[in-house]
Each structure stands twice: as structure tokens, then as C-alpha cells.
């Protein structure tokens, strides 16, 4: 049974159709990559999956439940963890407290386990050294790591990552890949929107290409990358 299923999901902002009749399934435990040009509707698709935006039409199923009308809070509790493309830290809270919010409200973790759990997530995302700094003092790259850490702290079954690898050095990018692989190896389903293709393709098993709100390709990453449509539209390469 797929952990996530979208059926004919649509969303328009005014006259602009940003999500156009999108349907796809994600099997439990899969790592799915999403690519597409800027403005293709990738982040909007995430918002529709997590409930931050209501779909105009269609249905979203998560873990066997219809969640089309479920608010984001309940979707988080049901096991969706997400990062925001533009980091949304709780600036007046420390990095550690940002995670405590996620761990105490995003999952039913006993208070006694919260500290250990959050500290471990901070260690995995290399933020432990900054645990007691206010989140507002972090650099953009650190804020992106905090997005990942906070989503992980909710103990998700499905982790949705929106462009977290941009601007990293090669070493940092390799470390990030290792972290995401390790999360994936624990059985967490992952959907990852990313422009850094080598990072994405070294993790995901399946690729989805979005353009003007429509799915224009989906399947094995190598095959999808090779397809004429993707090369033309996404990479802008004339063949």
C-alpha cells in the first residue's frame, strides 16, 4: 500500500494554475525526488501534501487515511514532517527549543525522552554546537539544517524536504547526503525537491518532473533525466 497517494489534485492562484490535475503514489519507504524549473509548482505541491494550502480539487491520502481536509497539525501528528524552502525558524527560541517544540507536539514522545531525542537529531544535523543559540542568529545554511532537524524531530514516517542542499560546499553536501541516506535506511519515506541534481540522484530511487504544475515525467532517475522532454524543458538543452 502506498504511504502517500494524490488523485487529480489541483490548485490555482487566481488565473494561474499552479497544480494541474496531479496524481501519483509513493510506496512506503521510497525516496522520491522532485525536479522542475523555478515556479513549476514544486513547493505548492508540498504545501498541498502537508495541508498548508488547501487543494481546489482532488484527494490526498496518507497512510491509509484521506487527509484532503485535514489541517497541517494533524498531518504532522499522523507522521508527515516537512521543511520549508524559505526557512521558518522560531527566531526567539534557541535551536534546541525549536526542536523541543517539534518533539513534544509533533509526536507523542514522553517528556523524559525529549532531551535525548532532540540532542541526537542536533548531533546528526551538526547543530549540536549551536543548541543554545537563538535561531535568529543562524546563517541561511544553518537555518536550512534547522529545517531538516526540526522535521526529523517530529519523528516522521514521511519526510518532505524542499531545496536544502543549495549553496553547500562539496564536503557539506556529502555530509547531508549521508544524513538523508541514513534517515532513509531507517525506513522513512522521503520526498525531496532539489536543484542540486547529483545530490538528489545519489539518494532517490525515483524521480518526478514537474513543469507548469503538470507531471511531465516520472520513473527511474537515469531514464527520466535522459528523456527528451526533461532535457528540453528542465535543462533547457536543445537536442
Amino acid at each position, binding site marked *: 500500500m502506498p504511504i502517500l497517494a494524490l488523485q487529480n489534485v489541483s490548485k490555482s492562484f487566481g488565473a494561474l494554475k499552479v497544480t494541474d490535475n496531479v496524481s501519483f503514489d509513493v510506496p512506503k519507504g521510497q525516496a522520491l525526488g522532485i525536479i522542475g524549473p523555478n515556479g513549476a509548482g514544486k513547493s505548492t505541491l508540498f504545501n498541498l501534501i*502537508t495541508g*498548508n494550502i488547501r487543494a481546489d480539487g482532488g484527494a490526498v491520502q496518507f497512510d491509509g487515511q484521506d487527509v484532503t481536509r485535514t*489541517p*497541517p*497539525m494533524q498531518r*504532522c*501528528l499522523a507522521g508527515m514532517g*516537512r521543511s*520549508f524552502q524559505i526557512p*521558518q*525558524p*522560531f*527566531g*526567539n*527560541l*534557541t535551536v*534546541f*527549543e*525549536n526542536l*523541543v*517544540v*517539534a518533539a*513534544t*507536539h*509533533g*509526536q507523542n514522545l514522553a*517528556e523524559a525522552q525529549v*532531551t*535525548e531525542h*532532540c*540532542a*541526537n537529531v*542536533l*548531533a546528526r544535523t551538526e547543530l*549540536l*554546537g*549551536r*543548541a*543554545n*543559540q537563538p535561531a535568529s*542568529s543562524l546563517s541561511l545554511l544553518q537555518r536550512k539544517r534547522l529545517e531538516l532537524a*526540526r522535521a526529523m524531530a*517530529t519523528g516522521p514516517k514521511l519526510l518532505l524536504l524542499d531545496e536544502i542542499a543549495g549553496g553547500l560546499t562539496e564536503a557539506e553536501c556529502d555530509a547531508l547526503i549521508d544524513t538523508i541516506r541514513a534517515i532513509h535506511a531507517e525506513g522513512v519515506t522521503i520526498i525531496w525537491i532539489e536543484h542540486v541534481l547529483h545530490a538528489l540522484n545519489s539518494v532517490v530511487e525515483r524521480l518526478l518532473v514537474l513543469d507548469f504544475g503538470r507531471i511531465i515525467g516520472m520513473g527511474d532517475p537515469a531514464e527520466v533525466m535522459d528523456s527528451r522532454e526533461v532535457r528540453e524543458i528542465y535543462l533547457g538543452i536543445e537536442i
Partner: protein
Amino acid sequence: MAQDVTFRVETRTPAARIAGIAALICIVVLFALPAFASRSLIQDLFFILTMLVLAQFWNLLAGYGGLVSVGQQAFVGFGAYAMFGAAILWGLDPVLAIPLAGVAALLLAVPTAFFVFRLQGAYFAIGTWVVAEVVRLSVAQWRAVGGGSGTSLPRDVIGDMLGLALVQDLFGVRAAAARDILAYWLAVILAVLTIGGIYWLLRTKRGLALASVRDNVEAAKSLGVDALRMKWLVFLTSAFGTGVAGALIYLQKGRISPDAAFSVTDWTAIVIFIVVIGGIGTIEGPIIGVLIFFALQSVFAGYGTWYLMLLGAFGIVIMLFAPRGLWGLFSDKTGIQLFPIRRRLIVTGQDGATIREKDNG
């Protein structure tokens, strides 16, 4: 990671430890004060303490919950009238009717919340004020408690008040002075419970959720925080506490009228002034604010309208030059917090890497 690494959370700071001891001493002194102090000092302290309670609850509402209400007088008046009603109609002891007044305010807060939670920003503020006016006009129709011109607590009700005889015996004072002392002691208890309760709340996971909603509601929701439930929690808690304070204020006054009990100036505008000059979003702020307000009032109250204009001007100056209030200014400069809520992660048994307290790389 190595096996021997352990983590724990620390919130206490040295300043807070000193503040805790000072607070204990302060509470003991406040309780003992009627033995030495004059009646007018007791009355002044009663005023300060009850305004402090109102300010703490408004601060919880606006400073922590982001709910800028200008209709808290609805709960002051409704609580006070509930106490008068219970005492006059049912013959209930006014002291025992005080918690009941809190419940009455709570009951009023439920339909109020359904209405005002549909409104955003300025409309929310106006909505709360409209509710307060409607309640005032309705209460003014209530003949049994004097309608529009108000009423007094009956002599026998006051005379038999719980604890009054005890206070009279203890200090050898007349009934009127004994009532002031009794009300004052209740105000000390209420202020301690209020500050202690709010501090406790802010340190729980709900307090952290409140802070997260204040910072970024969209992110908070996506991390499982029930933002709406937080709003309810804060609104109902504030209504209850404000209703209790209202009942206590009018127990001491002994006389009530709709215009006084639902006064937007006395129970909301001044309360906002206190919170804003002291420092919104901190527990220390309202404490500083109420002391400054009392000092200003003592000096300038004789100047009539000029006094209110002076308060307004003072408030504006503070807002311009210290947007986080006087305590915020002090706290930012010194780093001192008397009621710390920050959870610091302490790592022990880890060689080498330590947690930076400040950003130094």
C-alpha cells in the same frame, strides 16, 4: 556518539536563584505587613497588587498569545457582578464567591471567544470592546443588583465575611479596616498564584508552543502545534484570572456600578499602559510597569485631564525608545532575567566539542 555522553536541560540561572529568594522574602513581608503598616498603605498595596494581576493576565493574552484585547473590562465587571449577585441573591459569602466569579468570567469567555476568534488584528480588538459594551448594557438592566445606578454589598453580608472576625481580633481594628486587610491578603495570594501559575505555564511544553506560535504560526502548525487550542487556553485562563481579580477589587470597594465595573479606562487602558511601559512578553515587565504607574499616579493624579495626557505621552515615549519596555531595555543590556524560561541543553561527558553560548564562528 560515545556512550558516556549525557544530556540534560537547565533553566535556572544565578540571577533567578537570587530572585527566588528575594521573592520569598517579599511574600513573607507582604503577608506580615498589616501588623505594622497604615491602612492607606494597605489600600495602596491592594491597588498595586490587583492591577498587577490584571496586567499579568493581559500580558499573557497579548504578549504571549498575540491576542490584543481591549475588552478585558468585560471580565472584570462580569466577575465582580457575579460575586455581588451570589452574595446578594444567594447569600453566599463574598470571599467564597470570588472563585465563582472566575467561573462566571470563564463562562462569558466561551461565547466571546467563538465570536472574536473569527476576527483578526484590529477587528479582534474592536470585537472584544463591543462584547464588553454589550455585557455592560445587559448588566445595567439587572434590577436585583441595582440596574444602571449600581448597588452596595449589604451590611450583614460584609459583617459576616469569612475571616473578618479573625482579622479584627488579630489586629484589634474596626470592621472596615479589617475588610481592607482581608482583601489585601487575598490580593497577595492572588498575585502570587498568578505570577507562579503563569511562570509555570510558560515553562511547560504549552508555554513553548505559545512562544512558537508567536514567532511563526505556519511553522508551528506544521510541527504539530495546535495554535487554535493555544489561543483558547490563553483566552480562557486570562478571563478566569481577570474575573477573579474583578471580584476581589469590588469586594474591597463594597460598592459597584456598571459604568465603574466595565470601565475601559480603568481595567484595560491603564492595564495596557502598565504592560507596555514595563515590557510586554515578560513576567518582570508588568511588575516594573505597575510600580511606575503607581508612582506617576501618586504624583500627578491631582492634575485631572493633564494626568491622562501625561500618561499617554509617557507611554508613547517608551514605545518609541524602548519598544520592549523598560524591563526589556534593562534585560537586553544586562542579560538578566528573573523568571528565565530558556531551556539550555547541557552536554556532559563529551570531550572536545562544547556548546557555544554565543555565536563565535
